[in-house]
């Protein structure tokens, strides 16, 4: 397959499908400043977070690495990092600067308060937007793409139609020399045997089994049935009876390729092909990790309907539930109900997604993007002190 799209070439050679200028909070106490800057300077994408202060150890590493990973994402032309103090701001800015894109930082304490920080930040953002606006799209190859696949608000039509159709496209991206991320570790539970069989080595297979065991041991340590949290009530209403059933349907969205490795939350891939990523299942946390790992675009399969998108990577919503595509049409980009009802085969539905993917990579907006149904949520693994 020789599919191409029109993308933005970055200084380090990577390719973006959007040209965002991001103002990034390093911690929650500066979110107001980030919002002030984005209200003064048009065409800035504000990324605010919760927490970020008083985190330490593994939990702090995860937050810092995710912020750096997001900043490095090739959909972003340049970044202004805002923090309360300069140590954290500089650390994150230095990490992002490894990608050779323009990065600046400011500390609210050193600026002399939030109004002064918003003023200084707006001046920096203004120059960044002007500079980014000069960049033109150029022809890029599918092999330069990192595709994230996600599902949310799943029901049994997800496993029949939208997940396998997304998987069909995932296989095309892998065949073209690109990368695909499949995440949501709790939704490997009951389907580990299928994934482990496709692992590139016995070590990778062991990592898959161990990651799922960690989730299951955690569920056991809490003394409650995981059913209710996963599957969630709308999954159950949609006919998904157990986590095993949900998982067997969910993994289909990753396609059928060899699994190269299991990456940590937000980790960049070390090569090409299909990678698993160890993330929680809820869409905001999972997609934040996919984007920190470098995903430029996300195919999002839904049954009962989930409106969530990612602000950095355009999120294409696909459903094979004939009721949802009628009732939630404002949030569904593509209808694959033909696969559910047997009037369309998998490749017909899959090709429709592929065509839309190329359009979105070349600049067409998704519904979540236009409506702003977008959220960043960095997972936390330990309490703050």
């Amino acid at each position: 397959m020789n599919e191409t799209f029109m993308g933005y070439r970055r200084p380090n050679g990577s390719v973006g499908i959007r040209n965002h200028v991001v103002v990034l909070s390093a911690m929650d106490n500066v979110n107001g400043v980030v919002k002030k800057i984005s209200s003064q300077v048009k065409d800035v994408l504000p990324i605010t977070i919760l927490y970020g202060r008083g985190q330490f150890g593994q939990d702090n590493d995860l937050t810092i690495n995710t912020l750096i990973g997001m900043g490095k994402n090739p959909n972003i032309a340049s970044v202004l990092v805002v923090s309360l103090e300069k140590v954290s701001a500089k650390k994150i800015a230095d990490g992002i600067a490894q990608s050779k894109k323009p990065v600046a930082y400011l500390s609210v304490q050193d600026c002399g308060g939030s109004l002064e920080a918003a003023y200084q930040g707006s001046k920096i953002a203004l120059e960044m937007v002007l500079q980014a606006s000069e960049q033109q799209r150029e022809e890029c190859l599918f092999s330069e793409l990192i595709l994230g696949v996600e599902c949310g608000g799943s029901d049994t039509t997800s496993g029949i139609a939208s997940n396998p159709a997304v998987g069909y496209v995932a296989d095309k991206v892998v065949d073209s020399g690109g990368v695909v991320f499949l995440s949501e570790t709790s939704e490997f539970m009951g389907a580990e045997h299928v994934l482990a069989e496709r692992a590139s080595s016995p070590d990778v297979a062991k990592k898959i089994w161990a990651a799922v065991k960690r989730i299951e041991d955690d569920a056991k340590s809490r003394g409650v049935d995981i059913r209710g949290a996963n599957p969630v009530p709308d999954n159950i209403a949609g006919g998904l009876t157990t986590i095993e059933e949900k998982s067997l349907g969910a993994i289909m969205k990753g396609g059928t390729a060899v699994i190269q490795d299991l990456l940590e939350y937000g980790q960049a891939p070390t090569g090409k092909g299909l990678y698993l990523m160890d993330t929680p299942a809820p869409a905001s946390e999972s997609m934040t990790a996919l984007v920190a790992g470098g995903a430029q675009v996300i195919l999002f399969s839904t049954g009962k309907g989930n409106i969530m998108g990612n602000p950095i990577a355009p999120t294409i919503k696909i459903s094979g539930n004939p009721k949802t595509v009628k009732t939630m049409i404002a949030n569904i980009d593509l209808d694959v109900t033909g696969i559910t009802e047997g009037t369309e085969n998998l490749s017909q539905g899959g090709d429709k997604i592929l065509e839309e993917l190329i359009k979105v990579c070349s600049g067409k907006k998704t519904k979540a993007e236009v409506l702003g149904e977008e959220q960043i949520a960095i997972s936390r693994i330990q309490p703050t002190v």
Partner: protein
Amino acid sequence: MKRQAIVMNDKDNVATAVTDLQKGLEAVVEIKSQITQIAIQEDIPLGHKFAISNIATGEDIIKYASVIGQASENITIGMHVHTQNVMSLRGRGDKVIDGRDINE
């Protein structure tokens, strides 16, 4: 033509309704390449499952050729197969008593 239900794999003992199926309907289902009619015993909403063979208490529920749970009561052909008669075998923290998994 639109189908009424789908069996994901020849090894499965459940079918998934792809439209709302009313009690009493003779649902047309393709099982192992054979067109078969199954009498629907209870209303089956779109996306929900019904048995395509009799499944006794404790037997595996098979979908996608894999185990998706265990029957918690006897299920007969055409019955609704869901949380009321299927137990999950995974992530059962509620089955841990004094730190010991009673399933193990």
